[in-house]
């Protein structure tokens, strides 16, 4: 049977469904943020090759220029094709929503209001496109509201105080983000799970969970001390247990990467010229 370049069987098999849920991060140049971006890039490259297409959906923030520009600042100079779908700005920048999203290798959903995110997606019929993207093997990723949206439920501060809200339910169970960073959110989550919200996970800022196909996710952390937790309930008794996580090292910062590349070029030239033996 023919196998494609990635070693997958074409069409005959279902693509692996992948979701990366992140408890919280930014697109800054700090080491932990660079580690998260590197992971996103690597996941996108698995099917997207050398220049994967990565698209941000900044809907939950109301499509703030802040979120969009920090995304481009993080990915603009990297080997990928970054783009954004700003549903509030489509008037000035029309695009074929469905075609554009389904052409991506990774769709990243930014943080903000979970309630608004789902409401606007529903109004624009984006949820069904994302579900299809997931089934086609496009990586779905996001932080904060952009992570909880894939689950059956999450804890949102969309109305001020933390309270439970439903998600798209592509993944079973629930998720609470900014877990130990916002104690009132964690408390609301533990209460909710005790009261019958489906069991799930808590994610500190810079902790993540990666689903690759069915089964249990693998936990990741980009900052020492940032953890992923399994939160379950049995007869109203809530148990929280930290999951063993793989540490994501930060790649060299952009400026240094250029210096390294330059150094390698010079080394090669010298070698060719016979200067380095």
């Amino acid at each position: 049977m023919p196998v494609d370049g990635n070693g997958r069987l074409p069409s005959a098999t279902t693509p692996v469904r992948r979701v990366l849920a992140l408890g919280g991060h930014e697109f800054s140049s700090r080491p932990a943020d660079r580690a998260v971006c590197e992971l996103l890039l690597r996941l996108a490259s698995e099917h997207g090759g050398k220049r994967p297409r990565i698209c941000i959906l900044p809907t939950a923030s109301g499509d703030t220029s802040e979120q969009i520009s920090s995304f481009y600042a993080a990915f603009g100079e990297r080997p990928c094709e970054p783009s954004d779908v700003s549903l509030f700005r489509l008037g000035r920048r029309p695009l074929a929503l469905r075609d554009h999203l389904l052409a991506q290798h990774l769709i990243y959903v930014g943080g903000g209001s979970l309630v608004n995110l789902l409401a606007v997606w529903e109004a624009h019929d984006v949820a069904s496109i994302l579900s299809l993207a997931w089934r086609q093997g496009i990586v779905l990723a996001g932080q904060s509201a952009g992570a909880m949206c894939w689950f059956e439920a999450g804890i949102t501060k969309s109305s001020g105080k933390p309270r439970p809200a439903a998600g798209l339910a592509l993944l079973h169970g629930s998720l609470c983000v900014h877990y130990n960073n916002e104690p009132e959110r964690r408390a609301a989550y533990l209460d909710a799970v005790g009261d019958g919200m489906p069991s799930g996970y808590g994610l500190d800022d810079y902790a993540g969970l990666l689903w690759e196909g069915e089964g249990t996710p693998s936990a990741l952390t980009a900052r020492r001390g940032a953890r992923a937790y399994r939160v379950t309930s049995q007869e109203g008794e809530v148990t929280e247990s930290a999951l063993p996580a793989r540490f994501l090292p930060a790649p060299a910062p952009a400026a240094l990467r250029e210096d390294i590349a330059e150094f390698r070029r010079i080394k090669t030239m010298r070698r060719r010229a016979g200067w380095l033996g």
Partner: protein
Amino acid sequence: MKTAARQIVAFGGGGFSMESGNPLLDDYVLGLTKAERPRVCFLPSASGDADHYVVRFYRAFAAHRCEASHISLFRREQGPADLRRHLLSQDLIYVGGGSVVSLLGVWRAHGIDAILREAWEAGVILCGLSAGSLCWFEEAVSGFHGEPQRLHGLGLLPFSNCVHYERGSARCEAYRRFLREGMCGGYAAEDGAALHFTGEELSRVVASRPQARGYRLDVAGGRVVEMQIATAFLGDRPPSPVAPLPEALSTALAPAA
């Protein structure tokens, strides 16, 4: 108990969002409140609560002439906790432009749709431009993204609505087509024109530009009938008394045959 008149002022386009330096439409809606220092709340939901838009609102609705506030549904933690109480205590609710589809989605998620109906019935004046105009009607023509689309608004006014109604535009053509395809009859307004409804009746059309007009559109025998409505310019010219609307423009429901 005497109930206050229900009023909606639907701008085709204009006010501080589009006509910097021309405050005529904004002055008009403020004047309708009859309050010395009206309480005005801005809803920028259709723009995704864009910061620059909120800043422009506060600049236009300065503290010396009104008590301005805004509700950002994307940053609920910063605004009034009780949305209903806040909105019902206003003299004027001003809805900004942007994506009407997103606007309606977010409003429903926060229960704003029901609160606005309640506010309207309690006599709070509702106004807005573009998406903030379309939202009040039963049906609307949205040209925000790609091909103009037909959609349902909050339905406070039992008509259809088309904003930025410029001759020969895709929006204009689409509105006529939708009407032929069964969209309910309604009103269109050019940029600078505003449709002022009292209850469900159009009471007058005012304009911030001398040439801007409002229109009534209906279908009769498969043909679209467009009628230009006498429009009062709000500018410097001596105010001409606005003639009562001709009988043909009455929006009252025809008695059942």
